[in-house]
C-alpha cells in the first residue's frame, strides 16, 4: 500500500511557537520498509499518529493507497499501529487478547489469521492460556506483534516497538519481524533510535531534523537480506546516516547558539 505525505505540518494546541512537524513531504511505494530516525522530540511519533488518524494535522495532506484519507484507510482496516507499550488487556489471556479483535473490530472485518495461528507465528503457542502479567517483556511485545499480524492490514506503523526491550531480545525480535514481513510485504514505517536496527531492517531511512521535524536526508539502503554489519556497503550507508544525523544536530546547535 503506497503512502504520500505532502506538506504535512502539525502544531499541538497550546504550543503555537513550537510546531512538532513542519512541511514534511515524502512518498513511500507499496511494500517498502522505511525507518524513521531523528533526535528525540522531532515529531516521529506525531507523524505516525497523524497517519493512523489518531490526531488530525493542522496543515497538509496524507494519501494512502492512491487517494484514501487516513481515516478512510483506517476505517477499511488498512492500517495497523503498534507502539513501545505492548498495550495488552491484563484481564485476558494471550489467546483472548487476540480473539478480542473479532469483537472490537467492526462487523465483517476480514482477519488474516486465527488467534492460534497468530500465536504460533510468533512462537507463543505454549503461552496461549497465560495472562500478560505472567509474560516477560519480550513475550508481551511478541503477543502485540501477533495481534498486529492478525489484522489484514498492509500499512504497519511501528513506533519504536521493541525499544523497551534489552538489546538481545530486541535483535531477535526484529529478525523475526523481518522474516514475517518478507512474505507479506506490507508497507512499514518503523521509528527507531537505533541506527544499526534501522539498517538491518529497512530499504530506506528518513532522517529528521530536531524539532520542528523536517526531513533532513532520504537515504536508500540497497542491501540484500540478511545484512552483515561487517559488510563495507553496510558501513558506508551507516556513515551516511550518521553524517545526516550529526550534520543536522550541528545546524540545530548553530541556529540555537
Amino acid at each position: 500500500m503506497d503512502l504520500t505525505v505532502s506538506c504535512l505540518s502539525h502544531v499541538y494546541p497550546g504550543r503555537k511557537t513550537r510546531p512538532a512537524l513542519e512541511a514534511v513531504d515524502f512518498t513511500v511505494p507499496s511494500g517498502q520498509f522505511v525507518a524513521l530516525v531523528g533526535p528525540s522530540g522531532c515529531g516521529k511519533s506525531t507523524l505516525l499518529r497523524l497517519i493512523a488518524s489518531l490526531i488530525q494535522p493542522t496543515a497538509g495532506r496524507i494519501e494512502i493507497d492512491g487517494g484514501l484519507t487516513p481515516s478512510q484507510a483506517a476505517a477499511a482496516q488498512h492500517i495497523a499501529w503498534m507502539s513501545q507499550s505492548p498495550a495488552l488487556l491484563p484481564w485476558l489471556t494471550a489467546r483472548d487478547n487476540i480473539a478480542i479483535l473479532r469483537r472490537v473490530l467492526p462487523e465483517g472485518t476480514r482477519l488474516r489469521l486465527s488467534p492460534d495461528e497468530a500465536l504460533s507465528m510468533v512462537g507463543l503457542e505454549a503461552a496461549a492460556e497465560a495472562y500478560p502479567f505472567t509474560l516477560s517483556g519480550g513475550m508481551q511485545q511478541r503477543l502485540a506483534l501477533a495481534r498486529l499480524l492478525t489484522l489484514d492490514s498492509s500499512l504497519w506503523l511501528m513506533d519504536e516497538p521493541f525499544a523497551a526491550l534489552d538489546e538481545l531480545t530486541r535483535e531477535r525480535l526484529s529478525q523475526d519481524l523481518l522474516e514475517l514481513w518478507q512474505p507479506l510485504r506490507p508497507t512499514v514505517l518503523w521509528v527507531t533510535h537505533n541506527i544499526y536496527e534501522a539498517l538491518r531492517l529497512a530499504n530506506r531511512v528518513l532522517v529528521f531534523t530536531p524539532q520542528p521535524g523536517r526531513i533532513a536526508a532520504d537515504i536508500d539502503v540497497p542491501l540484500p537480506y540478511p545484512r552483515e554489519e561487517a559488510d563495507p556497503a553496510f558501513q558506508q550507508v551507516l556513515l551516511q546516516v550518521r553524517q545526516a544525523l550529526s550534520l543536522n544536530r550541528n545546524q540545530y546547535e548553530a541556529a540555537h547558539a
Partner: protein
Amino acid sequence: MKPHTPDSSARAALIIVLVFVLLWEGGVRLFSVPVYLLPAPSTILLTLAQNASMYAQATLLTVGEALAGLLLGVLAGVIIAVLLTLVPHIEAGVMSLAIMIKSTPLVAIAPLLTLWLGFGVLPKIIITALLTFFPVLVNVISGLQRVDGALLDLFRSWRASRWKLFLYLRLPSAVPYIFAALKISAPLAITGAVVAEWTGASGGLGRVMWLAYANLNLPYLFAPIVILAAIGISLYRLLAHAERRLVFWLPSSTVE
C-alpha cells in the same frame, strides 16, 4: 524476619485484639469501674449470650437494611457513572447534585425521612443508599475515564465504536475501582442503617442501642457494638477475597 504472609498478619491482628480485650478486662477489674460507665468484655459477652435470639433478630434486620441500601447505592452509583461517561456533557450538573446530597448531614435527613416514611425499613434503606452511593460514583467515574493511554490509542486505531470501547476497555478497567469503592461503602452502609434506626425505628440494632442508651444500660449498648465490629470485619474480608479473585492481574491492595 519472618515473611509477611496473609496468614501471619491475620494471626498478628488476632493477637492485637486479644491483648486489647485483656487490658480492658484487667483495667475494669483492677480499678473496679462501675458497670454504668464501662462494662467489662466478659459482662458484654454474657449479655450477648443471654439475649442471643433478641440480638440475632435485630442483627438480621439491620444487616438486611444495610445490604439493601448498599445494593441500591452501588447500582445507582454505577449506573450514573456509566451515563456520565457515555454522555459527558451532563457531568458537571449531575456531579454538583451528587455533592449537594453528599454534603447534607445524615442527622438532618434521617429524622425527615422517618417523618415522611414512618418507622419501617424504607427510610433506612434510602439513607444507606444515599450514604453509600457517592464513593461508588466518584470511584467508578475515575475507573471508567482513567484508562491506559496506549490501550485507548489502540482501540481508536481499530476504529472501535464508543459502545465497544466502553464494554471491552472502560468497564473492565473500572472493576478495581468498584472494589475500592465497595471497601469504603460497605462499612458506611452498616453505620447508615444503625444511625437511621437510632432516629426512630421499630427494630434493629440501632433501636436496641437507643433503648439501652435511654436506660443507661451499658452492657446492652456495648453488645451491639461487638456484633457490628464482627460484621464490619467479615464484610471487608469477603470483599477482599472477591477482589483477589476478580482483579487477579493487580497486586493485592488490601491489608488483611
